[in-house]
């Protein structure tokens, strides 16, 4: 009897240990989000979503200012970065997973991990040297390229692991039908892994969406919407993380508050992309559940 009780106690102890650890993990997130919301909520208003920032004097003269150009810029730069990164990252991931004996793979794996660990600011520097300098101007494209380099290793790794979950026997079944290997990968394996692939893309996306460093000397920042839409790609563009930084270091009280509001928007942006990721995988799970 005593031993049984002892086991129950041990089980409770272990469970409380797990619960405490979980709380420790989510505590920083809770503190951070509540702090950001408390500080920024007062600056959230319609102008924030409809007006450009303009010069600092605007706020002092009581004219409406906002961050609409920043939000638009963030969407353009981040989505373009994802479009740059997906084909390359997917290709690398497919090579790593589907051709495990390929001569390049050991090197590729090390390089991919190194790239992942490299400071984001260096990735910005790379884009600066390769794109900004030859073009002679800061640009949305160079910002996207820098962010794409941030996303690449994450997408490559997540693609590799998403594909390697699919049983090898499915590939053999495809080959036994007389299908070429690339066809089996594209038509049977990649679709089967799509939940994992999409989750990986969105994790990479959210990770890059929060990066300010690579954008400081690539997309640079802009207080206004570009005059022509091409300016989003070929001219300096504002993005949330970098705007957050410049608002925070500015000497204006009003801009500080706006910085907190920008933090809420960025936070919401990342949360929304995670929710989309979750829905994408959740839908699929439900389908599988129904089918059984």
């Amino acid at each position, binding site marked *: 009897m005593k031993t049984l009780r002892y086991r129950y106690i041990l089980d409770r102890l272990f469970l409380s240990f797990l619960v405490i650890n979980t709380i420790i993990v989510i505590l920083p997130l809770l503190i951070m989000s509540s702090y950001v919301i408390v500080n920024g909520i007062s600056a959230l208003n319609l102008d924030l979503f409809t007006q450009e920032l303009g010069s600092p004097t605007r706020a002092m003269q009581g004219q409406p200012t906002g961050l609409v150009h920043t939000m638009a810029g963030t969407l353009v730069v981040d989505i373009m970065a994802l479009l740059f990164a997906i084909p390359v990252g997917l290709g690398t991931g497919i090579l790593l997973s589907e051709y495990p*004996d390929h001569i390049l793979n050991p090197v590729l794996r090390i390089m991919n991990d190194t790239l992942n660990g490299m400071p984001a600011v260096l990735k910005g520097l790379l884009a600066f040297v390769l794109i900004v300098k030859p073009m002679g101007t800061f640009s949305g494209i160079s910002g996207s390229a820098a962010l794409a380099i941030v996303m690449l290793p994450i997408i490559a790794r997540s693609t590799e692991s998403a594909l390697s979950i*699919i*049983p090898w*026997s*499915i*590939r*053999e*079944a*495809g*080959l*036994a*039908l*007389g*299908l*070429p290997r690339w*066809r089996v990968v594209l*038509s*049977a394996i990649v*679709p*089967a892994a*799509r939940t994992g692939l999409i989750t990986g893309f969105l994790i990479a996306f959210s990770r890059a969406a929060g990066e300010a460093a690579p954008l400081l000397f690539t997309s640079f920042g802009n207080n206004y919407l570009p005059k022509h839409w091409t300016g989003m790609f070929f001219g300096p563009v504002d993005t949330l993380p970098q705007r957050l930084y410049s608002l925070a270091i500015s000497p204006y009280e009003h801009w500080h508050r706006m910085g907190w509001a920008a933090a809420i928007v960025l936070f919401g942006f990342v949360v929304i992309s995670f929710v989309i990721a979750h829905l994408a995988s959740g839908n699929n799970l439900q*389908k*599988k559940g*129904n*089918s*059984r």
Partner: protein
Amino acid sequence: MNCTESIKANVTSIKNNSFTIIDKDGPPLPHLRMKTENLTVKYGSTTGVRDVSITFQEKQVTALIGPSGCGKTTFLRALNRMHDLTRGTEISGKVLLDGKNIYDHKVDPVTIRRRVGMVFQKPTPFPTMSIFDNVVAGLKLVGIRNRSFLLEVCEKALIQSALFNEVKDRLKDPGASLSGGQQQRLCIARALAVNPEVLLMDEPTSSLDPQSTNRIEELIQELKNDVTIVIVTHNMQQAARVSDQTAFFYVGNLIETGKTRDIFTNPKNKQTEEYITGRFG
């Protein structure tokens, strides 16, 4: 359309394409479809199959029997170059399909696998495809888009594999929604849909209920007029029921081969006799 028709024509011409050995003095001998000569399969330092020479004749079913781990599956997989993907597998000897060595450097394994289909021990439906897409995957993914042709092939293959009545109203449902036994019959239908000349079956009925097993055995009998079948089985009765030729494997060696009736009634080798009578294995 043109492409579809040429492939259709191809599919039908394949059947008439086998060569015949004509014996001048007697009736025509059965066509020799496939043959191995001193086939050895090694992985690293282990030898999975040692020096196997055997012939597979057209309109005949060959059963490969033997205890677990004796190299039956390894041998079977060598017949359509499934070992190509496994690093460190070394194959020596020849596998002749209609007289041509499939391991010749000039031969593309894809064309071989198109002619030599395979059904695996465990069901392997493509997870994201519907029942219909699964059955016609081998045709659709090489560019055949003619829907009425695909439907026709799908129906025929599903009828052959005894699945049609169970799925005819839900061809659009995912292949993975079927039960294990149904999935296996789906995979058999998928293998039949590409109209192979040789069909390799690796314990195809091990996950099926007796009724489906029965149907698959009937199917094997129906198919053998068109397709040369090699089947690995652990079930002695099954080997006796479905096959014309039986080959007994033991630790990588082909111990004995001959007409099924002879192997089961009057085995020449003592090991074969002991295995068949259940004294080991």
